[in-house]
């Protein structure tokens, strides 16, 4: 359900960008998704095909770049990367005063477009 709304957002944002520059077809959409953004790549991919049918983005490839989530240990100052569920303690010193940095990204980085219509 959630990914349906997200996929509609991706499609609309990409179509708007393509139309602004007069492109005839979108071939690739590059997305940046942070670890805390709760987006399932496969699920977005699943919704994208039917939603994009008949648009400039039909058959476009979705590329996901997972933005790293770094955890900063306030005890030993070490910074390490992590995924949800978050770690309970620092793998280096066992400290429990941790701070997450980043991980909330959720945007389209770029699209690749061509002036050739589908099938040209």
């Amino acid at each position, binding site marked *: 359900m959630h990914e349906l709304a997200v996929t509609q957002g991706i499609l609309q*944002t990409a179509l708007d960008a393509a139309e602004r*520059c007069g*492109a005839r077809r979108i071939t690739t959409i590059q997305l940046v998704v942070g670890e*805390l953004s*709760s987006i399932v790549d496969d699920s977005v991919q699943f919704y994208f095909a039917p939603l994009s049918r008949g648009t400039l983005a039909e058959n476009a490839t979705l590329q996901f770049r997972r933005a790293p989530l770094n955890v900063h240990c306030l005890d030993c100052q070490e910074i390490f990367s992590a995924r949800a*569920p978050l770690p309970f303690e620092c793998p280096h010193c066992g400290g429990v005063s941790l701070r*997450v940095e980043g*991980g909330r990204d959720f*945007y389209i980085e*770029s699209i690749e477009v061509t002036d050739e219509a589908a099938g040209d």
Partner: protein
Amino acid sequence: MKLPVIENILNANDKIAQENRALLDRAKIFAVNVMASPGAGKTSVILQTAQRLPPQLCPGVIEGDLASRLDADAVAARGIPVVQINTGGGCHLDAPMLRAGLAQLPLAELDLLFIENVGNLVCPANFALGAHLALVVASVPEGHDKPYKYPGMFAAADAVLLNKFDLQRVFDFDVEFFKRGLRMVNPHAPLFCVSCKTGAGMAEWRAWLLEKQNAFARQE
């Protein structure tokens, strides 16, 4: 040809959220987006908070649920203006739904609006509504590991209420462990341990909320 875009995926939603915020600002209504898992006590928190407001502050409520009017009826029974939004299976409220809900409320009469989001610790955090404050309600029976498992939600909070705190011993709830998880993703949001049942902790939460509402009202 590669075109840089750098645009938020939920841009369309965010734009409407900004319009909602502008509408609320014009109406001088301080809006609180209440998010939690099902059963954490969102409706109880709203009712217990509303009951403790000074008489000159008029609250309103927007209830988001997949189905039913149970929560809206409970709110209406207290004489509080309320609109029920049924998402029909949708797992979160979004900005257009809030816009539709606002259109049905007597905005000129209200000072404080509680928006009860759909019970869910995942997607509501991603969909801006236009509220001034994001309140996350956790509850003791859910367990002390929730900030580690649902970091996105706890990262989005401006304040966290830990409800059903009267049950802390029954459930061996480790408050320090919970707090460390919360601080990992959100160093600043205040945590209030409350019980809607006994009223414990509600005075501190009320005082903090009124301070925020006051600052908003002065600046408008």
